[in-house]
């Protein structure tokens, strides 16, 4: 049966694209408006790519395909991503 994981599992792939941790970043679902941490999204990772769905309404928040040398990231399901960065030294 197709079951989901959560956004924690994307940390490694996203960590190769972003220098800040993305799993704790928050985004607002374009469909239902719920705000979730990336770690809280429902991730379907057994696919030709990784699909993260809103834990509230189930619609796609973002998608990622990784192949050697390339990545495709679709963030259309998030109105914006809020990241917490460490304070400047």
């Amino acid at each position, binding site marked *: 049966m197709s079951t*989901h994981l959560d956004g924690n599992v994307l940390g490694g792939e996203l960590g190769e694209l972003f220098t800040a941790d993305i799993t704790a970043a928050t985004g607002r679902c374009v469909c239902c408006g719920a705000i979730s941490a990336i770690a809280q999204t429902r991730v*379907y990772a057994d696919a*030709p*790519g990784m699909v993260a769905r809103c834990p509230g309404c*189930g619609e796609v928040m973002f998608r990622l395909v990784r192949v050697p040398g390339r990545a495709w990231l679709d963030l259309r399901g998030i109105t914006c991503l809020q990241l917490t960065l460490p304070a400047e030294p």
Partner: protein
Amino acid sequence: MGIVSPGFTGRRRPGGEDLPPGQYLVTDFPVLSAGPTPRVDLASWEFRVTTETGQAQAWDWSSFRALPSEQITVDLHCVTKWSKLRTPWRGVSLDTLLADVETAAEFALARSYGGYTTNLPLEDLLGGQAWIAYEYDGAPLGAEHGGPARLLVPHLYLWKSAKWLTGIDLLTEDEPGFWETLGYHNYGDPWQEQRYWGD
């Protein structure tokens, strides 16, 4: 290439078969999905073909099952590199379903329950190349493999064989689907290893 792990071979089985480039053989039947498995009630199931002019033809489960069907054995090639050979299905040919549909469209977009889409040229659905399959290995197609009915287009990578099929739109302009808009090749011929954009 990563550091070789001594003694690791993975789940593959030796080939000895004529596989498309980059593929390996499996004996199980992996389940890949972009979302939760849709649970479709046969009483409300519908398959609808919509043409470029907006004309539509629809079948409910009983009218769909009344159509002539055929038993087919096909090889499956998934873009994630596994291949499964000689898989037995029963389904209705798209030639049968589209026989009475008048269209000048060149493109098709398959739609699934749950929102998945995939696109392909209309001509790739015809000429005995595609079916809507509702039985696998002699039993009703299970939900995890796309049941009640899925598209089956074995000459292309398996992501084109949309599970939980609910409709096909015939279009005058190509409309890339779920994976085709995220790096996957627009056509997807496994024998030319057309996995990603630019291949």
